[in-house]
């Protein structure tokens, strides 16, 4: 390149080195602490489809006659699902209590939850309960456990009916 002085190039290289070193430093800066040093995390998360909101029923001959030929199915089974009512107690204090609506445009999908709870490290009593049927009181599934959480530990509470209900890992 015409007219470029060597000294100028040297200064530019020096400036570039300083800039790039700054960028390299910023690539690992700052140190960020997501939770306090002496605490742990309990995660409540599941994706679970509850019972249907109504039982199947047999259509009457009159109802069937009103339907188009291609839709004359004898049984009428509503797609919608019930909400899943869930509670989580930590050390006998309620930290989560929600009726989780079913997902999907037609409310026929699973209910979902994903929550994080930061707790001090140490011994804790965890109780999770869930209602996924039409019953008004009580729960269909529950788990209760006393756990010792180390600092920085992450404990998950999942719900997997195929494995018998709640799972703590």
């Amino acid at each position: 390149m015409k007219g470029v002085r060597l000294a100028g190039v040297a200064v530019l290289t020096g400036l570039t080195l300083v800039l790039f070193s700054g960028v390299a430093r910023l690539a690992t800066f700052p140190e960020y602490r997501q939770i306090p040093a002496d605490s742990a995390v309990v995660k409540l998360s599941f994706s679970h489809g509850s019972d249907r909101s109504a039982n199947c029923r047999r259509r009457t001959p009159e109802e069937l006659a009103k339907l188009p030929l291609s839709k004359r199915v004898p049984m009428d089974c509503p797609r919608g699902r019930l909400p899943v009512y869930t509670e989580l107690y930590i050390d006998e204090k309620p930290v989560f209590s929600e009726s989780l609506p079913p997902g999907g445009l037609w409310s026929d999908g699973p209910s979902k939850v994903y929550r994080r709870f930061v707790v001090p490290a140490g011994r804790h009593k965890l109780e999770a309960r869930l209602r996924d049927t039409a019953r008004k009181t009580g729960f269909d599934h529950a788990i209760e456990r006393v756990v010792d959480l180390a600092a920085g530990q992450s404990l998950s509470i999942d719900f997997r009916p195929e494995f018998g209900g709640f799972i703590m890992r």
Partner: protein
Amino acid sequence: MIAAVQALLRGGFDRAERALDRLVGPQANPLAQLGALGYFFFWIVAVSGLYLFVFFDTGVTRAFESVAWMSGPQWWHAGVVRSFHRYASDLMIVTMFLHLMREFSLDRFRGARWFSWFSGIPLIAFLYVSGITGYWLVWDKLAQYVAITSTELLDWMPIFGEPIARNFLDATSLSSRFFTLLVFLHIAAPIALLFAMWVHIQRISRPRVNPPRLLGGVVLFSLLAVSLLMPAHSQEPANLAQVPSPVKLDSLFLALYPLADRAPGAAWAGLAAFGLLMALAPFLPRRRQPAPAKIFLDHCNGCGRCVDDCPYEALRLTRRTDGAVYLQEAIVDPSKCVSCGICVGSCPSSTPFRRSQELVTGIDLPDYPLVRMRQDLIANCAAMTEGPRILAISCPHGAGKHLAPGPHLGVLELPCVAMAPPSLIDFALSRGHADGVAVIGCAESSCYNRLGVDWTEQRFAHERDPYLRARVPRERLATIWASTTQKGAMNRSIEALRARIAGLEAKNPSPEPAAPQEEILS
């Protein structure tokens, strides 16, 4: 408010650019090559990424080990390339935001130039997605933090069937198949980024996508030095039974993450507000757009010089429609034309010497036609009463905006100095309207209309048609490329020209000015 921010930024950029101009000249000035540097960093990241992929194990259990192996025993090749990959990605962020701020400060984002600004918005998103997905692949503690926070952020929007963050609930949740999907994302996002970068430069001609060799060499050398002295390393391996805390964040890519993990709604609101602000910026307030250039077919022979010179791809040649003997004619795309007038300066028909009652050229600006340019030149020169009389042909974007006419200085301000056809200089000097001409445009490395400085220089140097005729006494002509902050340098250059002409005048006086009516009827 916007103007004040622009002025502040412009002042800062201008001082840095002029200092770098002095160091390495305008051609290698990195601040004038930010777009090209962005492309350069992209290719460094792409090539280094392909190299790393050879050694990378895409399985969730082996990913960390394979990256550690690269930075450990194989530090001398794969480790260095890994540092290149990471730091060049970070430098792309720096370059991109500097480029964005510079274009904003130069007001190059409104009017017909909205497209380049607007098309840059998805580019920002693709760059971040490319970098963030790259951080996942290392599968260290930072990767775990980034993966969980990113998916929690996505899950905040109720559009996914199942929370994606559940994939990182515990060690049994994460499969190598999901990890392979991440690898695919990390390849797909940069391809989308490259496509966005290609779209971004579609409305400008001769985009700079490669930095000058000198600058490229300095960048590569510095990257190598930093890669050797401060190599990129992984943090502790990911462990889903542990909270990834503390982590060393990358401030350039992950600055928003602390907010995202504490208040994902606020993070989305911030991103939406930034995106909306960026998208609306070219239209609020809307700039009054001067009328686009207009073709006068009777004077256009379809030579294509205007098409070649237009910095914004606003002109093209098409089949002749008026039955004239020429094969082609130029047509203007009004949506791309910024009315800089460079096409007027490039048209061979744009000569003030033309002997016609109505001075019409092949392509002209309706708001400031060639005939008015000639009238203004004659009138401004006639107002000078003391010699040596200097005519300054200036633009509103450089130091020339500070000029005020005086007894020995006439000022002809054009949208861009390259709007002045070379014959205008000849006209001013040979007809004795002025004793000297100073063409005062933007600083060489930051021409507001991208190519105005280059074209003017090349026309004067007999390198680009239309040429400045050989008979024009070069000693009576000065080109002064000075930014708005270089008023003093401009004044000194004008005074130097005046002194030079005074010396010449003593030996060989310039011709007496012709009567104005002669200029029109000739």
